[in-house]
């Protein structure tokens, strides 16, 4: 276990031991799983371990509580997430929807390992179609997340909505603790400017998301 997670888990286990919180994983299994992780990912470099296997406090809690954290844990996750949000330098939260459209479709980038790694410079994207319906022309859209087709009509584009949508993409857990949605901005997968482009893809009237097929 790396960095600050040990005290966090220790804190968790203490809470559990005190019977203060019910549910969640069983602690012996969590400990044995971490032991197994260390033995099984021996080929990972220290940087890879730190960036991709070590858990930050939110990941550790969401894993332990299987994405259903008890109330006080949830408060902590949401407030830390909200505090983590960074905005584009120019303050523009509605970027270029065309670039947003590209980012929404890209599912490549960032794969590592021996068998089928990506070249390091391969572009990354949000792979939004994996979970959401967006532009109706794209048939291969997932249903893990709600459909976002015609999102402008559904949510409008007031300043408040634009900010809420930006925050949701930057760090989904600022709104929903242990959300399934990756924390694209917080984890540095997408830049603030790219997040703004995705916001435009969702809310710009010209975007195919908001135009009848």
């Amino acid at each position, binding site marked *: 276990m790396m960095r600050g997670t040990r005290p966090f888990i220790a804190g968790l286990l203490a809470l559990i031991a005190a019977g203060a919180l019910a549910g969640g994983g069983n602690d012996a299994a969590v400990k044995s799983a971490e032991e197994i992780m260390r033995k099984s990912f021996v080929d990972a470099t220290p940087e890879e371990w730190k960036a991709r296997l070590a858990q930050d406090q939110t990941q550790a809690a969401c894993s332990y509580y299987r994405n259903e954290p008890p109330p006080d844990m949830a408060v902590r996750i949401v407030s830390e997430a909200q505090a983590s949000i960074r905005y584009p330098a120019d303050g523009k939260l509605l970027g270029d929807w065309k670039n947003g459209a590209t980012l929404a479709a890209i599912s490549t980038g960032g794969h590592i390992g021996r068998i089928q790694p990506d070249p390091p410079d391969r572009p990354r994207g949000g792979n939004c*179609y*994996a979970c959401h319906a967006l532009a109706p022309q794209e*048939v291969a859209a997932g249903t893990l997340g709600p459909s976002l087709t015609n999102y402008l009509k559904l949510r409008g584009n007031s300043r408040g909505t634009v900010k809420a949508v930006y925050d949701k993409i930057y760090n989904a857990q600022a709104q929903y603790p242990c959300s399934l949605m990756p924390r694209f901005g917080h984890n540095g997968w997408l830049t603030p400017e790219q997040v703004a482009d995705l916001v435009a893809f969702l809310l710009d009237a010209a975007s195919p998301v908001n135009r009848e097929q």
Partner: protein
Amino acid sequence: MRRPRREFLKLVSLILAAELVPAGSALAEEWNKPAFAAKKLDDLYKALGANAPQQSDQVVLIGPEIAENGAVVPLELESKLPNTEMLAILIEKNPNPLAAVFTLPAGTLADIQTRVKMAETCNVYLLAKAGGKFYYAAKEIKVTLGGCGG
């Protein structure tokens, strides 16, 4: 289903000359390189030369509307026309449209299944030759990014 484009109709009409394969020849015929190598429609014309086929509901191309993976698209080729002696598969937007040619001697039914690769969503044509004339059926098959695209 989108009306086949005029240009492609020309391809279908000039395809697979009567002499491509003399029916019933025992020898495995010479592989028709020009036809399979044809990228552009007029090259295919030269390589094959054929008279204008008619669209016919006696020629039946069965395939999925959406193929989860362009690498393996199942097709069933059927012709109810009497004495069908040849069936051919053309995939409009493949680098080389001609995918396969089947020669059926007398006694062999015009009902074949196989699997083809499709580069992208497009029209797939089944061409049939019967009684010295050519007929065809067309079907658009959507090729999607299957899987979780992870």
